[in-house]
């Protein structure tokens, strides 16, 4: 079973190499097969679970420095692992059936997506700080290449901005990781979580460093400005991966490394994090209200949604004890829900832009007349995104607010403002629907092609997941709670 964990890294890597070497249609098929095999390897990991970590691989890598090749999956990481495997498969399949007309060989695009998957899997399963950091970095170069190679007209600038922001984040993360490892004498995340040795002062300093690194990735206002540019210019599949799972590296890192390894530091810095998160919610929503470009709007909506996730994390850090924290549960739920819904939204935005060659809301309109199916799915995704109860987006955002209010004092105000932000979210998404789906059909929209089979297959799993998570949020929260509790019980009993 544990061999599957290594498979999560090796299979996409082999697929990436095969995609590069073969090229053309054969390369795209190879990449898609590799992505499918990876997803197939993810599924059995849900069974036969151990206590604490469900499955682990732990081998010496650099014994003299105490660096180990330690991988593992538990309830916190498993939903993200599934999401990564699923979205990569959907994107590879989408590229297989709908190769973009222009740009370099799209087999390379598929290969790069798989290279990104290697890094993502490494981040979500890495239990050694050095492994985690390396995987965090692996993602950077392929994503840069995806934006710079297959992006829109202003892709070079957007790709550079993305690289510079994330690179500066990486430097901070490296400093933080080395600081933790060298001060505490261990790089092992599980050991560090169960036997915290760092003093409060050290924890605060180190948490401040790593939190900035993760905040760039998440992205947290005011470090978010790379995101709209990157999303606007990136190709459809790039945007899906970026919003769907790449941003989650930041929030996952905050939970696993920040709250796990540096709980005291996280608790001390949490109010700052909370204020910034609420600022992100409000500012993201207000910018969305004034936004007139489709992909940019969805990108800014990500800033707002990730704000809710970060609010949950901040609340969780303050309440202390990962296990019973509503905030962390909400953050994990929000994380996955945002991945599913925004992935779907970007697929839709890509489909609309492919057909109409414009993303300006003024030029779109009346989609309902010319393509009712597409308008219907867009409506569904928008409702899920605004947090309609019964759909995936609801739980994370509602409980982030609840967790915040439970803490009392200033947190009540933060929760209240966040709730107002939630209302704004509804306003801008309904505005989006009105502008795009309703009204008389514009010239750009009339006569567009119907939804193709590739698109239907790419969208269907996401629509189902959005529904499923809305009805049974326990799919994510239960498994996470179990793992978190197990961690804590183990920590207490030792």
């Amino acid at each position, binding site marked *: 079973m544990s061999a599957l964990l290594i498979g999560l890294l090796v299979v996409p890597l082999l697929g990436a190499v095969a995609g590069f070497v073969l090229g053309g249609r054969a390369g795209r098929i190879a990449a898609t097969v590799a992505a499918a095999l990876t997803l197939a390897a993810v599924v059995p990991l849900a069974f036969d679970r151990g206590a604490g970590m469900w499955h682990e691989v732990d081998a*010496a*890598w*650099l*014994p*003299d*420095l105490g*660096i180990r090749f330690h991988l593992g999956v538990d309830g916190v990481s498993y939903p993200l692992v599934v999401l990564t495997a699923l979205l990569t498969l959907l994107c590879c399949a989408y590229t297989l059936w709908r190769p973009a007309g222009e740009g370099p060989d799209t087999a390379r695009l598929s290969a790069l997506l798989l290279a990104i998957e290697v890094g993502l899997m490494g981040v979500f399963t890495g239990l050694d700080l*050095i492994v985690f*950091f*390396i995987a965090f*970095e*692996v993602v950077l*170069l392929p994503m840069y290449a995806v934006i*710079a190679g297959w992006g829109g007209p202003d892709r*070079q600038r957007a790709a550079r901005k993305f690289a510079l922001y994330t*690179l500066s984040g*990486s*430097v901070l993360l*490296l*400093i933080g990781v*080395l600081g933790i490892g*060298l*001060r505490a004498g261990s790089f092992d995340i599980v050991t560090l979580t169960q036997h915290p040795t760092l003093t409060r002062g050290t924890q605060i300093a180190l948490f401040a460093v790593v939190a900035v690194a993760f905040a760039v990735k998440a992205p947290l206002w005011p470090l978010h400005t790379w995101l709209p540019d990157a999303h606007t210019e990136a190709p459809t599949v790039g945007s899906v991966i970026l919003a769907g799972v790449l941003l989650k590296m930041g929030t996952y890192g905050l939970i696993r490394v920040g709250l796990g390894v540096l709980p005291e530091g996280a608790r001390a810095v949490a109010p700052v994090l909370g204020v910034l998160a609420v600022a992100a919610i409000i500012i993201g929503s207000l910018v969305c209200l004034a936004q007139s470009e489709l992909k940019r709007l969805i990108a800014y909506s990500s800033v707002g949604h990730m704000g809710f996730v970060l609010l949950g994390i901040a609340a969780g850090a303050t309440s202390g004890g990962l296990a019973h924290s509503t905030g962390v549960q909400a953050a994990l739920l929000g994380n996955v829900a945002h991945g599913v819904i925004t992935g779907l939204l970007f697929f839709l935005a890509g489909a609309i832009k492919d057909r109409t060659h414009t993303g300006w809301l003024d030029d779109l309109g009346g989609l309902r007349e010319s393509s009712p199916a597409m308008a219907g799915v867009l409506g569904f995704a928008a409702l899920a995104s605004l947090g309609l109860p019964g759909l995936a987006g609801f739980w994370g955002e509602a409980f982030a607010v609840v967790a915040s209010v439970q803490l009392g004092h200033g947190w009540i105000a933060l929760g209240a403002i966040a709730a107002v932000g939630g209302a704004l979210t509804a306003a801008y998404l309904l505005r989006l629907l009105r502008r795009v789906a309703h009204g008389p059909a514009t010239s750009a929209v009339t006569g567009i092609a119907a939804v193709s089979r590739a698109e239907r297959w790419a969208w269907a799993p996401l629509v189902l997941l959005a529904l499923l998570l809305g009805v049974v949020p326990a799919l994510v929260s239960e498994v996470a709670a179990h793992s978190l509790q197990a961690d804590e019980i183990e920590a207490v009993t030792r």
Partner: protein
Amino acid sequence: MRGDAVSLLPVYLAAGTAVLVFLCDLVFARVAVTVGAGVLGAAATAVGAALTRRGKAFCDDTACSWVFDRPATLVAVAMAVITAVVLLLSVPTLRLGEIPAGEYAFLLTASMTGGVALGGARDLIALIVALETLTLPLYVLVGLRRKSVESAQASVTFLLTSVIATAVTLLGAALVYAATGEVRLSALTTALDVSGPARPLAGAGLVLLIAGLAFKVAVVPAHAWAPSTYDGAPLPVAAYLSTASKLGGIFALLYVVVGAGPAWYHVTGPALGVLAGLTLLAGSLVALRQRRMVRLLAWSSIAQAGFLLAPLAALGHAAPADLVTATVAYTVIYLIVELGAFAGVISLRPAGADGGDLAEYAGIGRSAPLRSAALAFAVVGLAGLPPALAGLFAKVFVLRALVDARAWAMVAVVAVAAVVGLAVYLRALLPLYRSGTAAAPRAVLGSVVLGVLTLAAVVAGFAPQVIFSLARP
């Protein structure tokens, strides 16, 4: 002489290679044969050094002047491998006929002989003679681009500063000898622990020795020769200077500092710490302003010398073996990625050309994607970032040693320099992938060498423990 004459085999092999190259040039006068003989000889030296059993020679009752032990093997093998790589990289330049191939290959292998001898030299005289044998041929090699004024200027700069440095080293050795009556390193440890009027004399001698040797490593303030010399020299010679010459210097320093013993750590440690700190800051900050590829690499290699020396700053506060291991491990990884970077530059430039301006590389990432990627990999390795893991682990080695010794000031300097270094290497990296029209010539041999070096860097990244164990004294 007492001792084990077989342990001298690597030196004989290296010297034999030089003679063989000389004869081949006389008899055949063909580039391929001369270089082929040199590469084969260097390979034989490397294999011979790896297989030669440990031994000592030139011994009396108390100490030996030649000890072929683990570090000596490492140095000998590394020197031979570097020489073989540089010879292979020189082939396109030599084929142009502007540089006499026989002389070139002979001088390079003669320099290798000095390097191989340096590894086992364990008295001050043998050490300095070996280091000079390593350096002397380089004065000529640097000036071998006949029609180039820069090349001649570079050679003169190098000669003048080097001669002064040698004089300083010799003065230091003389003072140490005057104070103790001893030149053999293993005997020095006790002999140097003197008191009375001889003590300041010994201290001054030691400091002068370190200052003179620091020149070979191009440590601030003895660094100014490096950028113009690297830029004026033929590219493969610059590669040799930044690797073999540095390797020789760093091991000479290690032997002297460890030989001087714990009684002097309170002098040698801070002295090296100050040198390392200055080198790290000056090297990385000035590198930020460079517009020419080789000058940027030269300044960055100055900064790298700071990383090499940094662990030694903690001498006296931690087990010396740990600090030396960190330095040696960093050195080995540095050699691999630095050679990779130079191999990348050489294979991307026309035969006989210099490194050129950074702007001249615009667009080369598209016309020669694999070679550019390999160069980028090496440069990222120098910066110490994934996916070039070897460079990352090298920096972790150094930081770990310093943190264990609680040398916080040095940790801070190293961290700042590493961060500034990222900007430096980004400067070298970005032009490759900017849009432009630069085209790379065909370079089959260069690409193969580059590929092998990249593979070595990848392997070192996945199995850093191997290098760490090699570096253990």
